[in-house]
């Protein structure tokens, strides 16, 4: 009796199994329309409010799509009008008057006007603000509504990149009634409204009908979260997704390059990948040691080995695509003999031991192994310590408990961090601070250029950090798709110009 029920249960299980498989096949795939797109992202954002968190993943979904600021940054890093159609700047560079677009509505139907601008800025400037870029707002003296379509902002002092900074995701305009819930139900003025978030799986956006501005070609966008590089490769090849703006497996690019169905889009980012050095910890406080390291680093091997050839060598903390860039790569040319000489002069003829802490990205993990192998040639023996981001923030960034680390600084134009002696590099130089103060206050282009050159040269000569390469943006897309950003001057995936070829 037991046997019969046993046999039966196996039969039932098998039948269920077979039927479900047949049924699954019978159902055709989700029907995809020509104005829909599925993009892959590696990291899922913790929430969707770009004004309350620093995770790039947030901006990668909502920037320019769901939320807009007074200005916006275009693909080349230039400032463009957005919610502010035009502006005037006073002669003393302190007073800005912004003329706002009229007829704009938030996704919940309420009208957009100057009150929302004042609210958004005051919220970011407030005592209990959780904005990650308070620096953008701390130089603001006052934000004042002049009339429903005009806002005046007065700064405490002239600030060269003010217009650029308010075009970033941290300064988008939100609505008082809905701001608290933006983390889970973002309400903005952008051409796409948030539809839903299947946690751990995907986020869906759809084009709004009431958008005041250029109509968008893509009507529905799904962001799918794929963290495993192998799965990303499979998903692209199987056409389960249409594109991966930052493809996590540069090693496999050749597969896509050779395949006519795909388009590989390589561009630049604002990510200066550096061998960050603790300038207050021996022996790295000795400039001779830092110079020796600079002479030993072989950037090409690192770019090839860690990034499979994608990346541009840099000699200082500045992005090569920036118009004020100057090439400092050869400040310390590759010269092992010179390096050993310098080390001996510093008191380490036999080299020394140190540690290098590596966060998760492959530029760090792989890059770290390569650098360790290179430094061993001059006698520096590095112990590799793999840590995750939480630990990195705690140990390296907050407690400055490290010798060396590798990280990519993706904030645009962030050379100013070197003027802060408390920043984790612990570089304390009053001459450099003076340069930065001057740069912040200069608004004309020629002046800024000259100061930028000087700043880059300064950092390179002092070998404050090991300057490795500028992170490349490696995107893989369906060949029929166009309008994607090749570069990433700010974090974001601007869907507004994307379109399928007929």
């Amino acid at each position: 009796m037991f046997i019969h029920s046993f046999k039966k249960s196996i039969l039932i299980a098998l039948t269920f199994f077979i039927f479900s498989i047949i049924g699954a096949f019978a159902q055709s795939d989700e029907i995809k329309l020509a104005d829909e797109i599925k993009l892959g992202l590696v990291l899922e954002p913790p929430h969707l409010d770009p004004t309350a968190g620093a995770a790039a993943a947030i901006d990668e979904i909502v920037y320019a799509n769901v939320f807009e600021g007074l200005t916006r940054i275009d693909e080349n890093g230039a400032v463009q009008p957005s919610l502010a159609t035009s502006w005037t700047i006073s002669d003393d560079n302190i007073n800005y008057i912004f003329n706002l677009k009229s007829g704009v509505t938030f996704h919940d139907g309420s009208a957009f006007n100057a009150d929302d601008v004042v609210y958004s800025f005051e919220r970011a400037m407030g005592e209990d603000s959780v904005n990650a870029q308070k620096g953008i707002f701390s130089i603001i003296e006052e934000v004042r509504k002049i009339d429903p379509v005009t806002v005046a902002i007065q700064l405490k002092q002239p600030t060269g990149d003010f217009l650029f900074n308010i075009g970033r995701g941290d300064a988008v305009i939100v609505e008082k009634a809905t701001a608290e819930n933006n983390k889970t139900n973002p309400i903005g003025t952008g051409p796409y409204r948030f539809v839903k978030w299947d946690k751990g799986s995907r986020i869906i956006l759809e084009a709004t009908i009431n958008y005041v501005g250029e109509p968008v070609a893509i009507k529905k966008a799904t962001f799918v979260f794929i963290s495993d590089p192998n799965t990303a490769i499979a998903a692209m090849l199987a056409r389960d997704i249409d594109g991966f703006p930052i493809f996590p497996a540069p090693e496999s690019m050749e597969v896509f390059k050779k395949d006519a169905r795909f388009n590989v889009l390589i561009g630049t980012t604002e990510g200066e990948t550096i061998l960050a050095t603790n300038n207050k910890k021996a022996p790295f406080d000795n400039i001779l040691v830092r110079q020796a390291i600079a002479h030993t680093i072989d950037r090409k091997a690192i770019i090839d080995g860690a990034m499979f050839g994608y990346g541009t060598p840099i000699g200082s903390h500045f992005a090569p695509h920036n118009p004020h860039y100057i090439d400092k790569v050869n400040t310390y040319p590759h010269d092992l003999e010179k390096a050993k000489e310098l080390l001996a002069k510093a008191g380490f003829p036999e080299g020394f031991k140190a540690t290098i802490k590596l966060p998760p990205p492959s530029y760090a993990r792989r890059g770290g192994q390569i650098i360790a192998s290179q430094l061993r040639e001059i006698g520096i023996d590095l112990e590799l310590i793999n840590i995750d981001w939480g630990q990195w923030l705690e140990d390296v960034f907050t407690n400055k408990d490290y010798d060396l680390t590798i990280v990519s600084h993706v904030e645009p134009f962030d050379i100013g961090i070197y003027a802060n002696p408390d920043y984790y590099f612990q570089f304390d130089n009053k001459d450099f601070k003076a340069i930065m103060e001057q740069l912040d206050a200069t608004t004309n282009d020629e002046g800024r250029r000259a100061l930028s050159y000087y700043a880059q040269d300064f950092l390179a000569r002092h070998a404050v950090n090991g300057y490795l390469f500028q992170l490349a943006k490696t995107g893989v897309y369906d060949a029929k798709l166009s309008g994607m950003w090749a570069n990433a001057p700010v974090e974001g995936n601007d869907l507004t110009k994307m379109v399928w070829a007929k």
Partner: protein
Amino acid sequence: MVSFFLQRIFGFILTVFIASLVIFLLLDILPGNPARFILGINASEQSVNMLAEQMGLNQPIWQRFISWFLRLLVGDFGISHSQNISVFSLILERLQITLPLAIFAMVIAISIGLPIGIMAANRHGKISDSFLMMLAQTGVAIPNFWFGMLLVLLFSVTLGWLPTGGFTPWNENYLLSLKSLILPSIALALPQASILARVMRTALIDVSHADYIRTAQAKGLTKKQAIWRHGVQNAMLPVLTILGLQFAFLIAGTIIVENVFYLPGLGKLIFTAISERDLIIVRGALIVLVIGVTFIMLIIDLLYALIDPRLRLRGKQ
């Protein structure tokens, strides 16, 4: 009999309590301030402290544990600070994928493993027996993430029959949801099926030597019939035990498989939550996993005792 059940259930509760204590304590020493993590490297000390206060990170440890555990008992797993929603609902959502996945995998493992084991036992000593066992050996030896990738390369990339991963919610299109679970379930089921086949075969072979089989034969049944009608029942006992043990491995396997197939399940949740230092989610999800595994073992234990009275007696020692 009743005291046996009560004993077991008390043991279950004790295990869960100790497990929750261990999980809470260990994760409390975790380096990394979740508030700073959420706000990023350029946020001010002020913002970070503000958020830390909001998140209640500054209370003494025993206070936090007690309040956490008490709320756990009433089903309140807390509010995730990074996502502003109840951890309980989050976990429930993810269970909608992990549970069907585990069950599906178990069903596949049983429906493939047991018949193969029986077949092999019937052909004991012949070439087909060795062949089937070699297959089972290989099945156990292949790492399941590798197998999963190979399945994807064949069925998704080359043949295009099945998706590479991802998941459509059940209420949207349940047939598509099933489709997304097929490859992951097979990847999970393979090692389980192989083990089940081997255990079934061994148990059946033993049983075939037993007295009551010979008695049945004496009564006129063929060896095969005797085994089918009387043997398999007894062979099920060790199989049942293994099933319980393997469940823990199955759950552990879902963590890896969910990663490979980007399924938004419980394992994936734990992973992401750890890297975001969202301890509330990690604790809640780990507890659920531990409860799940312990619960299954409790059920198996009780079932076993129902079938085999000897155990109930030994438990009373």
